């Protein structure tokens, strides 16, 4: 058995079980009377023990075994569960997680003696069966021999459907069979057994002196074998198992594929321009066909990278539970929209900002139980993490029902720095965010205990902006605070509107374009001393692109289109000289020079090969 390969599988499956252990422990802790979680916990720990023993990771198997003893004692009512038990189980799950990681990395460490003792004590005495773990590992090596004349036959082996590491079991079964004869063929092939789609059914052809019964017995020692049947060679062809249509793919490979598709799109765009210029119908036709093929391919590649946000969300319940313990608060943590999907690369980056915001909500948002009760709220605070899908973006919301931001205190701090003439009444949510998202905005000395926001908000803001997303805040004193993170569904390839101003071209991502209208000079008005446009009875702040980018060139034409940008509920009108249509653009990295304005979100190469800047709509609002 190829240990390195199975170590990866062992690690992946153990991690899933450990994650579900954390989940189950959290549920159980909420309602210690309900023992539903106990069964699930027992199964997960038992599975990890089994996998650990199969792999020969005795440290993992032993720790899991001790946990199992405690869970078993709990299950049979020999000991009762209390606060200490939960803490111990959480600790043990963490320790088991470390043991699993170490074992899979090939450096099995020593066991945690204190934890072992604590687990034994909690289970009501030393466990009865430490020795049987060794037996479990050793027992897999036994085999017998027979002296009958060799006889060829086909053997159909079925590994239990709920068995973990079916592939490893199957290979083990083949190896066991080999101890009694010569195996001449295995179907599916040994390599296919290692794949995910292997459903547990395999057939082998072998020569052996042993009886069917002896063979079946030795094969069954591999463990998790549901059935062993001996069949006529004619049935060999029909033994091909049904396949599950899923495989695991290395993320780097998907990244490279995405990059290639991005380059393909740039090339396709250039081909389109050349074909249009050529006045050559067959070339135009071919270019159109390639365009459709590339679009289809792009959609498939993007779809293959989409991953449910639940994968990132699942680590937070445990975080909030630990935080509320440390802070002496009572916090209920709810999650919504776990199945909403995001591009893998965005998902990888979004965990950190969420972590900061959730930690903030628990630390500074939610009040201590007595404070809450004095304010007429329930003693238990609530933090909600929710994902919702919008047109071309996903919104992640972190809300708490805590104290909200104390604008007066915030203003006092800002005023000391001599920066504002606003009053608590006129300080908008945007202003609040601008203050607390300042790098190094300190809560320690002045605002902490009053409103106490800010730590980590600058980090979250920077990360989210780097993803082409936006961060917003809504806060009401005494009622709570909500942070809204809005991120694009996918990075890299963006549908954009090309706009011209003063002879220069700029790309505006369509995700933030609500509509385009004709600029009407009669609709110009003023909003807080700034130019504004009345569009559909709404007064929108207005930006002229040619003024913004300081473009020279010809004077602005009389008829001008206006792009209405929209981020969340905020809208702004962007007046441009002309619109040049839509294009899929690949946002390319480049080293931003010093002084580059915030409204430049990146750059791209247009269909004709010329570079163009991509406008960041969020920075224009």
């Amino acid at each position, binding site marked *: 058995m190829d240990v390195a390969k199975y170590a990866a599988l062992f690690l992946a499956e153990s991690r899933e079980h450990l994650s579900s252990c954390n989940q189950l422990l959290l549920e159980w802790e909420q309602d210690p009377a309900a023992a539903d979680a106990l069964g699930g916990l027992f199964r997960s720990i038992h599975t990890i023990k089994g996998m650990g023993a199969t792999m020969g990771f005795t440290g993992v198997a032993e720790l899991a075994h001790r946990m199992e003893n405690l869970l078993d004692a709990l299950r049979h009512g020999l000991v009762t569960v209390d606060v200490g038990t939960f803490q111990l189980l959480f600790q043990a799950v963490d320790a088991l997680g470390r043991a699993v990681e170490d074992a899979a990395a090939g450096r099995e460490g020593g066991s945690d003696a204190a934890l072992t003792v604590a687990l034994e004590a909690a289970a009501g005495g030393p466990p009865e069966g430490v020795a049987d773990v060794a037996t479990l590992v050793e027992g897999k090596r036994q085999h017998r021999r027979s002296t009958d004349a060799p006889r060829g036959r086909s053997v159909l082996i079925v590994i239990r459907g709920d068995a973990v590491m079916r592939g490893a079991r199957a290979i083990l079964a083949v190896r066991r069979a080999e101890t009694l004869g010569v195996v001449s063929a295995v179907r599916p092939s040994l390599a296919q057994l290692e794949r995910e789609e292997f459903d547990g059914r395999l057939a082998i052809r072998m020569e052996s002196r042993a009886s069917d019964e002896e063979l079946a017995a030795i094969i069954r020692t591999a463990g998790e074998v549901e059935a062993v049947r001996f069949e006529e060679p004619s049935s060999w062809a029909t033994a091909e198992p049904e396949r599950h249509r899923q495989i695991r793919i290395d993320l780097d490979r998907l990244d490279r594929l995405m990059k290639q598709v991005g*380059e393909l799109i*740039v090339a396709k765009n250039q081909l389109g321009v050349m074909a249009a210029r050529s006045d050559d119908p067959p070339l135009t036709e071919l270019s159109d066909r390639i365009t459709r093929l590339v679009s289809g391919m792009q959609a498939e590649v993007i779809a293959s990278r989409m991953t449910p946000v639940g994968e990132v969300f699942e680590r937070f319940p445990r975080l909030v539970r630990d935080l509320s313990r440390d802070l002496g608060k009572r916090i209920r943590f709810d999650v919504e929209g776990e199945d909403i999907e995001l591009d893998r690369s965005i998902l990888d980056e979004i965990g950190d900002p969420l972590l900061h915001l959730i930690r903030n909500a628990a630390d500074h948002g939610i009040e201590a139980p007595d404070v809450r009760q004095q304010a007429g709220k329930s003693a238990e605070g609530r933090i909600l993490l929710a994902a919702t899908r919008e047109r071309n973006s996903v919104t992640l919301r972190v809300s708490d029902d805590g104290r909200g931001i104390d604008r007066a205190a915030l203003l006092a701090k800002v005023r000391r720095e001599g920066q504002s003439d606003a009053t608590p009444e006129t300080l908008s949510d945007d202003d609040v965010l601008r203050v607390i998202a300042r790098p190094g905005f300190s809560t320690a000395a002045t605002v902490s205990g009053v409103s106490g926001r800010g730590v980590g908000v600058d980090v979250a803001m920077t990360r989210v902006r780097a993803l082409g997303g936006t961060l917003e805040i809504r806060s009401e004193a005494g009622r709570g605070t909500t942070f809204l993170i809005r991120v694009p569904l996918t990075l890299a390839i963006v549908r954009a509107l090309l706009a011209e101003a003063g002879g*220069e071209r700029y790309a505006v991502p369509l995700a933030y374009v609500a509509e385009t209208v004709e600029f009407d000079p009669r609709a110009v008005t003023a909003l807080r001393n700034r130019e504004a446009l009345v569009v559909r009875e709404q007064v929108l702040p207005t930006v002229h692109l040619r003024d*913004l*980018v*300081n*473009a020279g060139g010809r004077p602005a034409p009389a008829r001008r289109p206006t792009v209405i940008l929209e981020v969340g509920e905020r809208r702004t009108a962007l007046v441009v000289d002309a619109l040049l249509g839509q294009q899929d653009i690949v946002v*390319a*990295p*480049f*080293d*931003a*020079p*010093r*002084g*580059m*304005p915030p409204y*430049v979100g990146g*750059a791209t*190469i247009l269909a004709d*090969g*010329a*570079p*163009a*800047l991509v406008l960041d709509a969020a920075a224009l609002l």
Partner: protein
Amino acid sequence: MREILPRLPATRIPGVVEAIEGLVNVRGTLLTVLDGHVLLSQPRRAEDEGAIVVVEVGSRRYGLGVAQVVDFLEVPEHSIAERADLPGIDARLVKAVGIRDGVHFIVLDIDALVAPIIGT
């Protein structure tokens, strides 16, 4: 120094210093090009074809727009002297000076040249 490219049309970046000419497309990747004339306060001449010298500073690449590439020199250590004050050139940009065939040349300090304008 990495390579020499012909002059390419640059896309202006608003709001940045004059010494940044803009972005150019080099075989599908974007390169920020600096204007050598502005950096070294030299006048532009109509007869110059122009070229872009790609330089590497740290892990980043920049293009340096120049009037023309005259020659490649392999300079023996002893033929160059420590930098000296030269009329019309910011002494901080000069790494060393030398002479070849009776003509003076300057070895530019590329790091110092791009330092004030590259991003963080």
